[in-house]
C-alpha cells in the first residue's frame, strides 16, 4: 500500500513539470495556431540561464526565474516578429518545418557556444523533502507542481477575466473576425507566443534544478508536452493539468508495477496519444 501511494505521489509530482512545459505549448497552439517544435529549445534556454546566473553570479534559480521568464519572453517575441508571423497563413507543413529548423538552430547554437557538457546547479533545497509518514515529497518537484497549478490558474484567469485574455480567445476562434472588430491580432499573437516561450523558460529553470542543463535537455520534455496537448485537445489549456497527471501517474505505475517498466516509459505516452486519437475519432464518428 505504501509503495502504491508513493508511486501515485511520484507520478503526481512528475506531472507538475510536464504541465509547466505543456501549458506554454498549448498556448502557442491554441491562440497562435502554430505547433512550435522549438518549444523544448526555449526550455533549454531557460535552463542555461538558470545555470549561468547560478554559476557566475551565485543567483538562486528560483530568484532567477522571473528574469529567465522575461528574457525568454523577449527571445520569443523577437522570434515571432522575425519568423513566425510570416508563415501564419502558409500551409501547416511550412509552419512545422520552420519551427523544427528553429529548434535545430537553437540547439546547435547552444552546442557551439556552451559545448555538449551536462551542467548542473547546486542549491540548498535540491535534496530537500517533506515526509508524510513513510511517504516522501521531493522539494523541487513539489515547487514545480505548485508553479504549474499557479501558472495554469493565472493563465485561466487572464484568458477569462481580462481584456487581453478575451482578445486571445477571440483571435483563437476567428482571426479575420477579430481583425474586423478592431483587435490588433498581430500584437495578441506576439504576446501569446512570448508568454508561451516564457512558460517554457520557467519549466527550464526548474529542470535545471531537478536534472541538468544541456543543449538537448528540452527534447524529452517537448515530446511529453506534445502528448499532453494531444490528450487535452489541441489548445485546451484547462485540460493540460489533468492530461499531465494522467501521463505522470501512468508512467509511474508502469515503472513500478510492470517488470522492466523503466524501458516502457516512452511507450506509455505514445500509447496514450494513440488511445486518445482513436477515442476522439470514435466519438467524432458517432
Amino acid at each position: 500500500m505504501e509503495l502504491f501511494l508513493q508511486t501515485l505521489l511520484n507520478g503526481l509530482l512528475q506531472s507538475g513539470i510536464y504541465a509547466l512545459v505543456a501549458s506554454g505549448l498549448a498556448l502557442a497552439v491554441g491562440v497562435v495556431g502554430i505547433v512550435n517544435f522549438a518549444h523544448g529549445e526555449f526550455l533549454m534556454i531557460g535552463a542555461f540561464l538558470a545555470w549561468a546566473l547560478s554559476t557566475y553570479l551565485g543567483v538562486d534559480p528560483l530568484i532567477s526565474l522571473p528574469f529567465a521568464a522575461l528574457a525568454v519572453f523577449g527571445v520569443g517575441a523577437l522570434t515571432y516578429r522575425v519568423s513566425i508571423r510570416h508563415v501564419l497563413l502558409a500551409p501547416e507543413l511550412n509552419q512545422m518545418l520552420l519551427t523544427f529548423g528553429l529548434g535545430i538552430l537553437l540547439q546547435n547554437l547552444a552546442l557551439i557556444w556552451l559545448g555538449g557538457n551536462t551542467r548542473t546547479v547546486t542549491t540548498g533545497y535540491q535534496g530537500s523533502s517533506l515526509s508524510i509518514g513513510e511517504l516522501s515529497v521531493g522539494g523541487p518537484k513539489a515547487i514545480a507542481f505548485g508553479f504549474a497549478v499557479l501558472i495554469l490558474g493565472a493563465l485561466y484567469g487572464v484568458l477569462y477575466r481580462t481584456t487581453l485574455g478575451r482578445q486571445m480567445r477571440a483571435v483563437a476562434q476567428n482571426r479575420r473576425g477579430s481583425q474586423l472588430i478592431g483587435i490588433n491580432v498581430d500584437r495578441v499573437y506576439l504576446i501569446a507566443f512570448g508568454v508561451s516561450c516564457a512558460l517554457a523558460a520557467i519549466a527550464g529553470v526548474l529542470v535545471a534544478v531537478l536534472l541538468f542543463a544541456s543543449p538537448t535537455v528540452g527534447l524529452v520534455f517537448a515530446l511529453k508536452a506534445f502528448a499532453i496537448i494531444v490528450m487535452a485537445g489541441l489548445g485546451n489549456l484547462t485540460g493540460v493539468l489533468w492530461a499531465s497527471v494522467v501521463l505522470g501517474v501512468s508512467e509511474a505505475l508502469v515503472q513500478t508495477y510492470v517488470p522492466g517498466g523503466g524501458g516502457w516509459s516512452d511507450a506509455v505516452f505514445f500509447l496514450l496519444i494513440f488511445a486518445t486519437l482513436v477515442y476522439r475519432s470514435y466519438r467524432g464518428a458517432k
Partner: protein
Amino acid sequence: MKKMLLTGVLLALSGAGAVKVGALLPLSGAGSVSGQAARNGYLLALEEINKAGGVLGRPLELEFADDGSSPAKAVPEFVKLVTVEKVDFMVGGVSSATSIAISGPAKQYNTFMAWIGAAAVPVEDAFADHKYFFHYHPWSYYNFEAILDYFKHLRVTKKARNIAIAYEDGPFGSAGIGDTVAAFKKAGFNVVMTEKFKTGSGNFGPIVSKAKAARPDIFYWVGYDTDALPLATEIKQQNLNVGLIYGTPPSWPVGFEKNRLADNVAGLSLWLPTSPNAQSRAFVNAYRKKFGNVTEEYFAPLAYVNLKTLAAAINKAGSTDKDKVAAALAATNTQTPFGPLTFTKSNKTRYQGFKAGSWLSFQYLGDDRAPVYPLKFAKKTTVWGK
C-alpha cells in the same frame, strides 16, 4: 623552443601529405563529458607528437567528428571520415551503441581502429573478426570483475548483502545484465531489485521507491553522467537508507563534486589525477600547462595514450601500411598513466589493452574523488551510509 618551432615549420613546408587520423567522439549528447575530455587528451598528444617531428617525417593531422552520442549520427560521420576525408586510421569511440552501429562500415572499409571506449560485450562480438581493431578500454566483464572484488570486500567489512540494480536500457547498461545478476548471486549477494531506466529522462522516483521497499545495502546503477544528479537527488529526497550508492558512468557531470548530493557517491575510474606514477604526473603537468586546469575524467589520458601509442606504432612500422602498423601496435609495451600497456587477447578480440587490474573505485568525499579500493591505492576508507 627554436628547435620545436623549426621542426613545425619544416613539417608544414615539407610538402609531404599529412598522416590523417579520424577521431569519432561524442562531443555532444549523453556521452559528451567523456567525448570532450577525450578531445583534450587527443589535442595534447597531437601537439606533443608534431612538436617531436610528427610521424614518418610528416605532420600528424587529426580530424574530429561529433557522433552526437547517437548511432544514427555516428554512421554517416564515420563513413565521411573514411571515404571523404580519407583518414589513414580511426581513433575515438566512447559509446557502445555508436560503436556497434559503425561496426558494419568499419568492416566494409577494413578500417584501422584504435578504440578507446565501448565497453559493452556486443561491441566485442561485433568486432571479434576484425583484424585491425585495437581496444584500449577494458570490456564490461573486466569492469565488473573490479566492482565485484570491491563489493566482496564490503561484504566482509560492512556486512553488505543486498544489492539493488538500476541500469539504462541501451547496450551500455543492458548488455550482460543477466550475467551481472548471476555473478552477484554466485558471489553470495541477494539481488533485491533489477530495474531499467531511460538515460536522460531524470524520472527516478518509481525506481527509488521500489528500491526503498527492497531495502538494499548497495544501490548499483549503470548509466551516464546525465543520470547522476537526478538519481542522487531522488535518493536523498526519498530518504533511501543505503550503505553505498555506486555508479559506473563513463564520466560524471561537470561540477558534480561541488554538489552536496554527491557526497559519498562512489564510482569506478581507470585513473585519477592523484595517481602517483611518473607518467600520470607528467600527463597532469602537461595537461595543466596546455589547458590551465586538471581533468578528473580518465578519457583524457586514455585518448592521450591512444594517439601517442598509435603514432609510435606508425613510426615503428615505417609506413602507414595497416598490417605493418598493426604488428607494431600489437608489440606495444609501454608505461602509461594507467600502468603498463600491452595488447593481449580478450574473450573474443585479438588486441585488448587494459583489463580488470587497471580499475580503481573512488568515493566523492568533500570536493574530491578519493580512491577507496583496491586498498593498495586507497587514500580514504569507504564511507558507509548505514
